[in-house]
């Protein structure tokens, strides 16, 4: 318990510092926020053009499509908010400054995973949450399904965590690749749209091999009452397996770490 509180305190200090540095980057952050807002708007419009005119496409109505889109944004943004430090891992690795994090009596993985809470994304997260709640209320949901939806959102975060840990580990193992995190981001972008638009083989691959489907497509499906009980069990099983696997691979990567810089 004492250990946990101690870790939490350090987490708060790191978050506070990341808040303090916002001012130094305010111009860039302004453009960044603008860009993110436009992206959200553009995809929203795209969905409008694609699905509003063809309401029968894949059995989803427009409202459901938007819930899928917002669920994607929520999970994606929550992961970015919490794990922003992962995006700064490569410079740390290349310069060798990671050495000085490794020798600190504070868990390295926690530091490089959670050490940079992103406050601009926190703002977006709240924004998405409000719109999501708005559309959830508009959609007539069943309470059990809503409960499963939240449970699967939690499950999606376990998967997101595992993916980010894998990104860190692969960063150490394959130092010549400079955008591992962006590969993750592009793969997850399959989840922005209803999974049913993809062909079955691709869909199954994305769901059970790369569990991106479990992350983004399962929660709304549960909400709409379209997910079987077995699939929910499988979802949790896959997440836990991947999560422990990612920790193992992280440990392995530390043994292979060769320290950059000089």
């Amino acid at each position, binding site marked *: 318990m004492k250990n946990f509180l101690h870790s939490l305190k350090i987490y708060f200090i*790191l978050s506070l*510092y990341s808040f303090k540095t916002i001012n130094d980057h305010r111009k860039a952050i302004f453009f960044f926020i603008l860009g993110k807002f436009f992206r959200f708007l553009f995809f929203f419009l795209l969905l409008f053009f694609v699905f509003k005119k063809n309401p029968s496409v894949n059995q989803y109505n427009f409202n459901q499509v938007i819930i899928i889109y917002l669920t994607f944004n929520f999970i994606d943004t929550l992961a970015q908010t919490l794990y922003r430090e992962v995006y700064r891992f490569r410079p740390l690795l290349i310069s060798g*400054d990671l*050495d*000085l994090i*490794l*020798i600190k009596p504070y868990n390295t993985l926690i530091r490089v995973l959670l050490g940079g809470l992103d406050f601009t994304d926190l703002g977006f997260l709240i924004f998405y949450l409000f719109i999501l709640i708005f559309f959830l209320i508009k959609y007539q949901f069943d309470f059990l399904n809503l409960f499963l939806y939240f449970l699967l959102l939690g499950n999606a975060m376990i998967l997101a965590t595992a993916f980010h840990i894998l990104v860190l580990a692969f960063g150490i193992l394959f130092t010549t690749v400079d955008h591992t995190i962006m590969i993750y981001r592009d793969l997850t972008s399959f989840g922005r749209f209803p999974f049913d638009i993809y062909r079955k083989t691709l869909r199954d691959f994305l769901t059970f091999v790369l569990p991106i489907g479990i992350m983004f497509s399962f929660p709304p499906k549960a909400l709409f009452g379209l997910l079987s009980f077995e699939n929910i069990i499988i979802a949790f099983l896959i997440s836990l397996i991947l999560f422990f696997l990612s920790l193992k691979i992280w440990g392995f990567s530390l043994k292979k770490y*060769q320290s950059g810089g*000089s």
Partner: protein
Amino acid sequence: MITVKNLTKIYKTPIRQKNLFQDIFFRKYKETIALDNISFSIDENEFVGFIGPNGAGKTTTMKILSGILYPTSGEIDVLGFYPFDKKEKFLKQISFVMGQKNQLIWDLPAIDSFLLNKEIYEIEDNQFKKNLNNLTSILNCSNLINKPVKSLSLGERMKMELIASFLHDPKIIFLDEPTIGLDIFSQEAIRNFLKTYQKEFKKTIILTSHYLEDVKKLAKRLIIINQGKIIYDGSLKNIIDFYSKEKIIRLTLEKRPEDNFLKKHSLLKYQFPFLVLKVKKNQINQIVSQLNEEIDYSDITIEDEPIEEIIKKILKNN
């Protein structure tokens, strides 16, 4: 305090093959032996200098001793721990300063990084204040800790790095090229600081540096590494006694010597009125008396060969 037995470290780097497919799925590696079966031990309160050419394995040794790198094989015991386990208790007792790497938060004043370390190392308030005061006064830089790190010069930043690394009163300190890239005044300041600090607080310090000056002024014990092997381990004084078979005699002449004289001795340099001779150690008395007879001089000094020369020779012969 530190014991290392038969330590070996092999780096593996992927080799580019004919096609991408092989590069990804059937990676082949080139093996580089960074440390080749080395053994040594270091006691409390020692100040040890690691010397050797680039890629000799100095930094690798320190990184293994601090738990950053995983050794390929060998036994290592530092303060009763196996470093790679990265036990909190162990990490709280060590510190690592690297001249080219930085732990300070770039956009914020150094004091924020210090406060973060205070929490990470769980330093008591009083102890923290005391240590901070101590360190800033020895380094004479209390005015810098409130300025954003990015606005500091390289030398000033190094001072902040040192404070950040020493606040928790580490028992063992690893210093990897702490003076690299600094101007001579900053080098001097950091050297003096390390000297004072070690004397006052009785720390075990292990240092590598390209500037032999650092090692000469600070370390009492020298470990020379070349191609992953230890080729000398002993005091600075012994290396001169042991390896140097020659001495240098410098003379200031009163008048020009005869050609005959110049031919007879091995001259290092001659530009009237200065004359420098290199002499075998065991012949020193004999030569000096010869000089007394043969020439007039107003001044004579007898020196050891410069340590740089001795080390160069050792590395060459190895």
